[in-house]
């Protein structure tokens, strides 16, 4: 097995180990609080705590700006490789 495959398998295993117990823990907590209104208040508090939520104007600018920057650097890298190849082939 290649090292890269081992890394990916470990990543998947790790994410599963964290997600499964967290999901069950949340269910138990929610059952205890139904009807008391505590859940609603907690959700509101969580929304207030969030820094720059996804879907807001600034949030979208940051997220799409990051994705655009990554896309641009990938395209720039590919263009750089292609132009250097063209140069070397025209020299020979």
């Amino acid at each position, binding site marked *: 097995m*290649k*090292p*890269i495959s081992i*890394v990916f398998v*470990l*990543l998947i*295993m*790790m*994410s599963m*180990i*964290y*997600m499964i*117990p*967290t999901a069950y823990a949340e269910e138990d907590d929610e059952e205890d609080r139904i009807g008391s209104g505590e859940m609603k208040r907690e959700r509101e508090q*969580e929304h207030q*705590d*969030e*820094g*720059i*939520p*996804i879907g*807001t104007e*600034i*949030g*979208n600018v*940051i*997220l799409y*700006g*990051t*994705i655009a*920057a*990554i896309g641009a*650097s*990938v395209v*720039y*890298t*590919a263009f*750089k*490789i292609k132009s250097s190849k063209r140069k070397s082939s025209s020299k020979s």
Partner: protein
Amino acid sequence: MTLLSVLVIPPTLAFADDDEAEDIVENLGWVAVGAGIVANIPFIAMNKIRRYALKTGSSTIQVAKQIRTIYKPILNFHIMLNSIGYFAGMTHGLLLVRHLDSVSLSLAIVMSVMMISGLLLKYTSSRNSKIFGKLLHGQFGLVILLAALVVLYIAIGDD
């Protein structure tokens, strides 16, 4: 390292009370930041000095040669610490997934791109993929973006 974190962190969080668990998750974030700083600043500085020494000519060429001898161990240190930082950061993000916002999502995307390009650079045998990985991994713009997102994330987290 991954196996160690998988074995150690979930039981620690399960038995810890809420405040302790919060502290552990927060500390994971600081581990990621610290590992990133220690892994990258000396490595980038070393590469810059080596390039400068090679450019300036005969008097400094000895410095470049000396740096070349320690390049491999420093590269391994860079890879090891960055892997620790990446997994610590991702674990921190997974444990705080309920508070996911655009800054943390952007940070996770940039970190993953840097990690994938690093893996591509290290493990691929194709010449084109190696060049692609090298150019993408060394993009100054991406490094600045990553640093800016980390600063923004810490600033938002402190509020």
